[in-house]
């Protein structure tokens, strides 16, 4: 496995609220790296700052101070078209509430990142079909989101995130709205994508079961990283047990 970092995070701070009004410091100096091809989890209780952190890393919000690089490129000060292009080319997102466009079919949703870049129509169709069959949603391509189950919707969202072959895939509690079977399927899928396509994945979750699929877990508490767990050669079941034990001591 390669050890060059695909993402570096240096002394990241985020304070909500304008100076003078009521302020809340959600992130208090976060440092870590993600290596290329790694599958990293971020865990923490509700309100610990997971979403805040992910939004900074995924360019959806700007930190108060600190620096983030993805693929050696500093991203915290990107604006306008360069920011849009960076999002379109370098990163993919999967959100808890799917974030699909309900006015478009699954096919159109998945193809959107390609049409946005004016990819030739000839290339779009095979690309969509390839990623869809990989994720097991080939037969639902003509359905609208409201005609799909939660698990299917999340796989469509994953297909949309992956079609551009991003350097990094971000997920904010992507299994949060799924039943346990669909959740397991989606997590298996992440593992496969991570192994076969060497996509780096950063998964935010409060659920130990989801976290047990990761290779490395960072625990966040009160805006700081408190602890780190490496799966190493443990089986998933053993890693799960280790996470539960860690949470038991960490959360107190």
């Amino acid at each position, binding site marked *: 496995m390669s050890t060059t970092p695909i993402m570096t995070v240096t002394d990241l701070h985020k304070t909500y609220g304008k100076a003078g009004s009521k302020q809340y410091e959600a992130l208090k100096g976060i440092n870590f790296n993600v290596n290329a091809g790694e599958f990293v989890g971020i865990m923490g209780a509700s309100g610990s700052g997971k979403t805040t952190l992910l939004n900074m890393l995924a360019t959806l919000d700007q930190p108060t101070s600190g620096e983030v690089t993805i693929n050696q490129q500093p991203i915290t000060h990107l604006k306008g*078209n360069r920011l*849009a292009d960076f999002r379109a080319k370098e990163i993919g997102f999967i959100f808890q509430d799917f974030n699909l466009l309900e006015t*478009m079919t699954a096919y159109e949703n998945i193809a*959107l990142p390609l*049409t*946005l870049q*004016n990819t030739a129509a000839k290339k779009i169709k095979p690309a969509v079909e390839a990623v869809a069959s990989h994720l097991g949603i080939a037969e639902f391509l003509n359905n*609208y989101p*409201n005609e799909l189950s939660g698990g299917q919707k999340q796989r469509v969202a994953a297909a949309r995130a992956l079609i551009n072959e991003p350097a990094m895939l971000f997920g904010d509690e992507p299994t949060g709205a799924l039943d346990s079977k669909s959740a397991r399927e989606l997590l298996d899928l992440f593992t496969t994508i991570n192994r076969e396509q060497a996509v780096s994945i950063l998964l935010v979750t409060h659920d130990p079961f989801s976290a047990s699929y990761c290779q490395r877990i960072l625990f966040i508490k009160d805006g700081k990283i408190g602890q780190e767990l490496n799966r190493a050669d443990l089986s998933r079941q053993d890693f799960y047990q280790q996470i539960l034990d860690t949470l038991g001591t960490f959360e107190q």
Partner: protein
Amino acid sequence: MLTKLAMTGFQKRWRDYLVLFSGLIMSSAIFYMFEALATNKAFLKQNTSISMVGMIFQFGSVLLTIITLVYIGYANSFLLSMRKRDYGLFMLVGARKGKIGQLIWLETLLVGITATIIGIALGSLLTMGLSQVLINSLGLTLHHLAAWYFPAALTTLLLYVGLFIIAGFFNLIALTKTPALKLLHSNDQPNRPKLKPVRQLVEVIIGLLSISIGYWSMANLDKLQLAGIGIALVTIVLGTYLLFNAIFVWLIVLLKRLPFANRGLNGFTLSQLSFRIRNYTKILAIVAMLFALALGAITVGMGFHRQVPLMANGTSAYDMGIVNTTSQQQAQIKALKPTTETTYHFKIGKKAVYYRASEFNAQPFATMSPVGKTQLKFKLKRLDAQKLTKSYERYQFGQLQGSAQQQLATTMVSEQQYQSLTQPEQRLTVFVTKDVVANQAALKKLAASQQKRDHALQGQVLGGRYSGYQMVNGMYSGLEFMGFFLGIAFLAMLASCLMFKILSGAAADQHRYVMLAKIGTRTSELNNALRKEIAVLFILPGIVGVVHVLFGLKMFSFIMIGSPYTGIWLPFLIFAGLYLIYYLITVQIYRRIVLQ
């Protein structure tokens, strides 16, 4: 407690309420504006010589009422969708249905009545402002026009309050009969655009058929009379709706198959449009109708405006006649650079005014005489002494004289007879300028100076093209005013209908635009997408409206000189400008909502 909850909901959604309020206020203001003319009998009687205008106003009233009905229906469903979640929440926390029903009913009525009262006030201000602008810029003379007209206010209030009471009951039933959970999760569902070839073909055929019937009856209004307008209104509205319904779906399904749909956000825009298709066909049909009415009214108003000098030119071949011009008047006439200036000499006897026939033979007097069935075209004739005495148009000469001479018979005499008369010789100077409208200020001064010398010379006793112009202008001012006034009122109604409909969907669109931005869409592309989407919604009814107007103008061919189509590019251009402004405003507001 519950009232407090309702109030917090109100505060949270003030922006949505602002859209709702401004839409309703505009609608009631426009309805009032229209009624202020339509119900003002004295104004209509004074300002129109054509009895049909009154009838047209009544039809307009009915049409506007129907539109208002639909409009309030939209406003109400907007209000309902806004409050559904809140009320669902109240129910979940255990509020009694009866209490909630009361709240809904009260809220609907409160919103409606407040908006209507503000609307009426705004409407009377608008009436005042708009009529001042029109009167000044068109040089109109109007009588009995009142910006504040109580019967109009009453009609507006009664209609709106009545409609809101009904809407309130409707909301009460809709909300209290639905389970709380369903209210919480009632989201827009996309309707899959379906192609049903047989049904759509039938729709196209019936649509085209009924539009043809409408066009035919407008072209044959002289035979059908009033019934023609009624038939046209019903068939054209129905036909437009059916055509939109059938063609819109086809168009989008077709466009989606083209490579064009795979470029940038085009596919997204098409999906947005097809998502709304069913909601939009009704409003687009109405907007197309309003567009046609507005553009038609302005075009006809302009047609009448153009008509005035043409009609005035038919009243006489000379601008004015002046008896015994002073040297100052002589200079004034000279300054006008008349194309023809003739002086005839005469002597006044006891029973007649005596002119020298030889003078008329040397300088024939010109008259305008109507030709054709409609009597709306005129021919210039030059008449010598003998022809003039026999001509029916000799009154055109008589009117150019002074007030004393107009009482007496005009007699042409030979040179000998003329010399033998002992009375003092006097002069009548008649002249014509290039353009009576352009010279009207100078002509007015000249007429005033002559009226001072000849006190009995008032108004229509003063003959010639100049007083003809004043008469015709007075006659047509009312029609012109109504055309422009209604045109602008309909345009405002149309725009607020369309704007309201588009903006009421903006809140639901917001998360889609946020999502697009998150997956890396440039802001410029988002802007382009929303501009295109709204442009389609503006252009489609616009095209249909223009076609309706082009056919509808035929109705006016029998009360207008020449073709009602001459020079229509000007009103079309003005209208396009106003429409464009509305489009830009809508885009601006929509952008502010969805892109923050």
